């Protein structure tokens, strides 16, 4: 293959060059197709498992299409009043956590991008970056103790607030704002009598929407899927989130896999739909976000 390479004509730079040979193309598309199958297979199994009984899931011969599809799992899971509530809880927590995180990160990001002359700017920014190195494992127990002392365990606050100070998000927003919001625009708005917050709200926010979208998706994924923290701070059935509900379906000695698949599907579906709807925007948001070390 490399032999043919020099003969090719180069085209649009960064996106590489067209005109590979047929063999290359076959190998490449074959590779992509196999990869796609492998990466999507567990999802297929998740869907198929949701329509199987326990015995069918562990049948000696695995089948993708359930030989005798059952809706029992969904009936059981949906008849349990805690599922709609858990779904609602997860949505509420996710929406508020994402909104809060985006607001705080973009506001601080703008501050770090636009007020470079402020005394202490340099070391404050270094400090923010430094906090990225603090592992959650070290702070987990104390945060739990604090929340207990304040009395907000088993509330939405315990899920929404602690992770909202996101240093990575601030860094990302700062990079994006530096690259995409020219100082002149900021200046013009100010001359027009905009307050500093007005500049943020009317000038900066509209411009950085792609980056907000991409960061939002990443934050959404992590908050929607968070099991460990939910396990630690949420106590009662009416406050369960979806991952916690799925995890607790597991009994002390028995695991009802069919139910778990059904509830799991309900957990995964919104994220997949959201991702498929916004994937172009998401990818372009991430790739334009200059995530560079």
């Amino acid at each position: 293959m490399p032999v043919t390479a020099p003969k090719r004509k180069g085209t649009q730079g960064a996106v590489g060059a067209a005109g590979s040979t047929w063999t290359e193309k076959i190998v490449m598309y074959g590779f992509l197709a196999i990869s796609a199958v492998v990466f999507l297979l567990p999802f297929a199994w998740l869907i198929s498992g949701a329509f199987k009984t326990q015995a069918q899931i562990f049948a000696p011969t695995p089948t993708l299409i359930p030989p005798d599809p059952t809706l029992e799992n969904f009936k059981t899971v949906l008849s349990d009043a805690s599922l709609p509530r858990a779904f609602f809880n997860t949505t509420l927590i996710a929406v508020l956590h994402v909104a809060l995180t985006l607001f705080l990160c973009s506001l601080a990001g703008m501050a770090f991008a636009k007020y470079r002359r402020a005394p202490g700017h340099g070391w404050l920014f270094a400090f923010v970056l430094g906090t990225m190195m603090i592992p959650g494992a070290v702070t987990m127990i104390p945060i739990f103790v604090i929340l207990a002392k304040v009395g907000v365990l088993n509330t939405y606050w315990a899920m929404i607030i602690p992770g909202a100070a996101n240093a990575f998000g601030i860094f990302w927003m700062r990079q994006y704002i530096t690259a995409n919001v020219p100082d002149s625009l900021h200046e013009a708005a100010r001359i027009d009598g905009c307050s500093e917050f007005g500049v943020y709200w009317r000038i900066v926010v509209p411009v950085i929407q792609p980056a907000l979208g991409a960061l939002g998706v990443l934050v959404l994924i992590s908050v929607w899927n968070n099991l460990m923290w939910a396990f630690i701070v949420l106590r009662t059935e009416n406050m369960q989130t979806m991952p916690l509900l799925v995890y607790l379906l597991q009994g002390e000695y028995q695991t009802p896999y069919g139910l778990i698949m059904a509830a799991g599907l309900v957990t995964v579906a919104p994220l997949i739909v959201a991702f498929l709807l916004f994937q172009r925007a998401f990818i372009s948001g991430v790739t334009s976000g200059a995530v560079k070390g």
Partner: protein
Amino acid sequence: MMSDAAAQSTPAKKPGSTGSLREQMWRYRHFYLFISPFFFLFAVFGLYPLLFSLYLSLVQWDGLTSPKWVGLQNFTTLLRDEQFYRAIWNTILIGVYHFPPMFILAFVFAVILNQQWVKLRAFWRAAVFMPAITPMVVIAFVFFILFSTETGLVNYLYTGALGLLGIEAAGVPWLQNGTWAKITVSILLVWRWTGYNMVIMLAGMQGIPGDMYEAATIDGASRWQQMRYLTIPMMKPTFIFITIMSLIGTVYMFDEVFVLTNGGPGDATTNFGLFLFQQSFQDFRFGYASAAAYSVALVVFVMSLVIFRVGKKGE
């Protein structure tokens, strides 16, 4: 630069006199205002926990009775705790098993999907990225079914394929045997994180100016040469970022092993994250767990610095 100074309509004064510092701070009050929420949250959920954790590492505390001061005993016990070393060793092995294939795969996908002429790019990208958005608690159960020794699809295909070749083989004990269980966890990690890292690499690649490739092509550089001397060096910051993130991710990984293997068989897949959870929330040794968390955080920090330095050096 100039516009910033101009915007404040004052010629840059030399900072030094206290009066001017005060003035400056007042002039930039919005800066402090805008970053204050972060610092407030950080003080409550970062700084205070950090100090509290340091205190915890010097006491014995079961969460139920009042803490008992033990000085450095937690640390000395830790240094002689076999389970701790096993957890670290398991973490290293899982890291070594999953990182290279994941990294290479992510890079290959990024290179392919960065070519504009490749058809269905959005579809391939979505397929590879999808695992990154799914909750581990759900997918770990699916993996448990897929990798079941007796009835799992993976062994079914494996023994079936060998059967076609006329070889009769027993199924692989994916979750029953220590080494295989580590490999199963690693497969899960590769599956889960390849897409995520691919997207980050794509971001890095699109940051490389197109005219550099044009220039290289005009100079007669082959595709492989472009890759070797242009793409890879330019991608270094991204690679460093991914390496450090993977290091941290592997050390503190929790959901994956908690649900899939619960650290077993025996303690074969108990990584540091699960070890911490067991020490604190199953054995009620919060002080000891804090000491372990602190020690390892320090090591991870130093390793990150080393990776950063080594990576930068090559430039």
